[in-house]
């Protein structure tokens, strides 16, 4: 059974079609890049997968379930912007995740935080921007989820932090999961991806493995992206 499956999935905001007739089936054990320019529908799709937005029409299943209580526990979501209470201490955030998510591995989170020398008794708002992003990622990846939906995880950080984030994803995802990474920074992520989805004006224009693209076209995903989305 596919981990994520959609059939003719649509999301409209008034007359704007943010996601159009999306048919998709993603099997377990893949790191998938959701690639497209700003405003192409990436965040809308991710928010439907984690149940924050309701589809306008069509079907969406996470491990066979419609988004709801069961799928909340299956999907670990990293939002584009910080959604955690800034006034809380890192340690308190971990306690909160332990309460919320039965699949949360606190010892894993503590180890990663210790590796980075992040003091867990500090409040989130008193950490540097880079460390705040890392704390969020660590909380997200410390869950033993079926889907990791990461919305622009490397958007606002320097290249060294990008490497750290990608390594953390590789080291910690559950191997039976689907990791969905939305980004427009393709060159930075393409080596860690199994599969890429190109999304343009809400429509899926390409669904292919990275190896297929390189074998058949002899070019990188980044080069292909520049062709498909040339302005």
């Amino acid at each position, binding site marked *: 059974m596919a981990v994520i499956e959609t059939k003719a999935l649509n999301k409209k905001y008034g007359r704007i079609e943010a996601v159009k007739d999306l048919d998709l089936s993603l099997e377990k*054990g*893949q*790191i998938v890049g959701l690639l497209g320019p700003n405003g192409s529908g990436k965040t809308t799709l991710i928010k439907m997968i984690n149940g924050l937005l309701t589809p306008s029409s069509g079907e969406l299943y996470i491990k066979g379930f419609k988004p709801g209580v069961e799928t909340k526990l299956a999907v670990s979501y990293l939002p584009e912007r910080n959604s955690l209470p800034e006034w809380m201490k890192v340690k308190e955030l971990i306690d909160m995740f332990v309460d919320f998510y039965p699949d949360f591995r606190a010892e894993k989170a503590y180890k990663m935080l210790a590796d980075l020398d992040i003091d867990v008794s500090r409040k989130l708002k008193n950490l540097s921007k880079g460390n705040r992003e890392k704390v969020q990622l660590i909380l997200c990846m410390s869950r033993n989820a079926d889907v990791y939906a990461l919305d622009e995880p490397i958007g606002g950080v320097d290249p060294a932090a990008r*490497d750290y984030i*990608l*390594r953390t994803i*590789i*080291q910690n995802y559950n*191997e039976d999961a689907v990791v969905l990474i939305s980004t427009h920074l393709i060159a930075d992520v393409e*080596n*860690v*991806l*199994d599969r890429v989805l190109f999304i343009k004006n809400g429509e899926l224009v390409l669904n292919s493995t*990275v*190896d297929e693209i*390189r*074998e058949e076209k*002899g*070019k*990188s995903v*980044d*080069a292909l992206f520049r062709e498909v989305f040339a302005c």
Partner: protein
Amino acid sequence: MWYFTNDRPIYVQLIEQIGIRIVNGSYAPGEKLPSVRDMASEVGANPNTVQRAFSELERSGIISTQRTNGRFITEDKEMIAKMREDLAKEKIEEFIKVMKDFGYDAEEIAKVVANYAAGKEEA
């Protein structure tokens, strides 16, 4: 350093680069390889890609899996020597082809290579 070009699948490049490390001794005969995930993290590649490269290397016999212990480089030094020869042969073939395109014949190629190896700039 691990470096990947954009035009070919990563697993193919990974097979080559692990092979180079085996023939030049960076990975010693009998040495244990990192786990798939650690390797993926080290080289910055996808774990399935690393798995695929390991599988191909296992098929060729240059690495082997010992059930729960992990993957090891072969201790068969002849096999490693053979692999080194094959890699060299491949490069030589590429080089000869280019040189022939430049209009050099076998004798001239042998001469310029010998001279270059002896530290002379000119043929």
